[in-house]
């Protein structure tokens, strides 16, 4: 259990801190002034100190100075009403983790303590291992930019990932809207649903989305202001307003509110298909070539759209294989892991087509595919002898050998 020392001459503040941090699972000790704080630090080990500035007997900056002078590097988080820049700058020079200005919201205190304690844990682990202390954590990196050619998420990232990448955020106070959308959208798309605007903003602060769908009539919210906030938090997402089908000027009205366009309710399969094709299907890219690897891009449509996707793949395949020949490759890898497998036989036919095309120009093809596709390939004359691998890494290793 992590131990925190709160040093503040206000009993009320110490109580608030103790309550909040105990709920976080910390053990909290208290001191009324800097002298008592130093005494406690001398007699016990703490993972974090929460320190006020203005205190009788010995103030915060003086206590911090003496701590550092005697080699005590316990992380310190300032909790004070002092807002003079010069004082804060002096504290930064002495080494502090962060600053919480009173009066504060409990959420801010908890978030900053959580962050500081995680840093403390890393620092201690590194110190225990005898390595030099890591540099302070850099500012968080901006949300990942989408690739210039949008190939859709990888198979691994198609659902909500631990990295916080989800495809669609839906904000609507009607639960049935969420149910309907989840039933129509392909299962390969990750979807987050919120019933109110506040939850939507909270998610938008910590995750990155490719599309944000917002009910244009959310209660108690100025939608124009809301969409401005959303755009700053999600600079790369397409923002659509959901509204009841009606006037022909609906699209224009949504744009004037700040949306990119409108998604009319009730949803129809055709409208959703068009949405997917426009924003997720990687309109121009169905096969991506990287050196001698041809990667089939993900398909996000429904089963009855798969044949159209195969037609697009076949058109792209010819150019991709010719490019291999022009680059004088003898061998190449076809990464077909993301090939739609609604109909395994159809998938196998496509692969057979690829093998035939590449054979004509003298390029030997190795395949990366799912076990079910590999099994189906055994049933075709053209592909029964085809070398098949479970992962791209394995295929590359074999080519390199």
């Amino acid at each position: 259990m992590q131990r925190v020392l709160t040093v503040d001459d206000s009993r009320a503040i110490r109580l608030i801190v103790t309550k909040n941090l105990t709920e976080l699972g910390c053990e909290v000790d208290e001191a009324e002034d800097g002298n008592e704080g130093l005494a406690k630090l001398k007699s016990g080990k703490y993972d974090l100190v929460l320190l006020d500035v203005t205190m009788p007997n010995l103030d915060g900056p003086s206590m911090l100075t003496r701590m550092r002078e005697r080699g005590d590097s316990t992380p310190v988080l300032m909790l004070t009403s002092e807002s003079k820049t010069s004082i804060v700058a002096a504290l930064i020079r002495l080494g502090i983790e962060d600053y919480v200005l009173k009066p504060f919201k409990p959420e801010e205190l908890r978030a900053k303590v959580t962050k500081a304690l995680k840093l403390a844990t890393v620092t201690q682990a590194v110190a225990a291992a005898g390595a030099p202390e890591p540099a302070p954590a850099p500012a968080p990196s901006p949300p990942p930019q989408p690739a210039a050619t949008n190939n859709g998420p990888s198979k691994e990232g198609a659902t909500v990932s631990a990295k916080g990448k989800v495809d669609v955020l839906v904000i609507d106070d009607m639960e049935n809207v969420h149910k309907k959308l989840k039933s129509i959208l392909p299962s390969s798309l990750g979807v987050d649903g919120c019933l109110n605007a506040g939850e939507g903003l909270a998610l938008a602060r910590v995750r990155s989305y490719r599309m944000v769908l917002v009910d244009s009539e959310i209660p108690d919210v100025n939608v124009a202001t809301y969409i401005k906030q959303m755009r700053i938090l999600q600079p790369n997402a397409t923002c659509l307003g959901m509204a009841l089908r009606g006037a022909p000027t609906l699209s224009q009205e949504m744009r004037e509110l700040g949306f990119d366009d409108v998604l009319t309710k009730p949803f129809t399969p055709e409208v959703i298909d068009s949405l997917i094709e426009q924003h997720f299907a990687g309109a121009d890219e169905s096969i991506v070539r990287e050196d001698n690897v041809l990667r089939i891009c993900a398909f996000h449509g429904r089963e009855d759209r798969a044949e159209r996707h195969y037609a697009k793949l076949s058109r792209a395949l010819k150019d991709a294989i010719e490019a291999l020949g022009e680059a004088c490759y003898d061998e190449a890898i076809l990464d077909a892991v993301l090939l739609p497998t609604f109909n395994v036989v159809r998938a196998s036919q496509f692969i057979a087509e690829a093998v035939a095309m590449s054979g004509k120009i003298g390029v030997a093809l190795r395949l990366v595919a799912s076990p079910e596709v590999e099994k189906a390939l055994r049933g075709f004359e053209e592909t029964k002898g085809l070398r098949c691998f479970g992962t791209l890494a394995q295929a590359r290793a074999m080519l390199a050998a």
Partner: protein
Amino acid sequence: MQSPAAGGVDERLAQQIERIIVTRVENDTLTLPAMPAVAAKVLTLLHSSDFSMREIAALIETDPMVAAQVIKSANSAALATREPTRNIGQAVARLGAQKLRGVLIEVSSRRLFESRDKRILDAARRLWEHSRAVAVLAQDVSVVVGIEEPEVAYLGGLLHDVGKPIVATMLLEAESQIAQRAALGGWIDSEVWTSVVQRTHRRVGLVVARKWQLPDDVVAAIEQCDEYDAGSRRSCGNAVRFANAIAKREGFYVGSVQAEDNDALIMLGKSLLGVTDEVLGRVIAGLRSRAKDLMS
């Protein structure tokens, strides 16, 4: 290395020049650049209770540079609709009075950062880039934390350093007059320059803002951005101060930055305004994606 005596002379010189400028500010005898005539007339019209957009469009059409900027702003991504507009009347209608006011102030202040003097030309341009960066950041921070009228924060950010090129130009003119009479080279040390500009630019900027009859809340944002106001946490002035520190940290600045002082401003600002690290990352990403537009 400069001797202590020389440092003392520089400090006295800086104080003398500062006194001259402050006296002129207080006596209202400072010669300041006027707002472009068309922009001034349109802003006066917009202040009045009855005006027609047609009348405003007709005025704007008489200044091609202002007209071009108004159309560009009306066709910006923030206001994009299917059809771009090439017509001043449509552009004015699309922008509306408040946004049009912002565009005109921006066009006018841009000119203040264009110097004919080669010695400060580059610094002035980079200062404009910094001012645009602060404006964008202040506006975005205001939007995400829920400060009303983020447009005020934008203008406050744009104009927070407007006094600097004016003071710099005054120093150059003074220097060249004295140099002509005494056949001397430059007589003001660069440290004195920096010190005088730093000490006086805010006051001069406020005089410009009042002379141009900018809205009171914009003037307040410029005035209040020197120190955080802990009593009024979510104010435009605080947003501008915070944005200034972020812009400096991200490299959108000309001049040296005291790192710990700047870090202090950022740490304080995050708590004051309620900005988390994640939100700050998004706002900075938004700025970086618009970096190439900052010089326009």
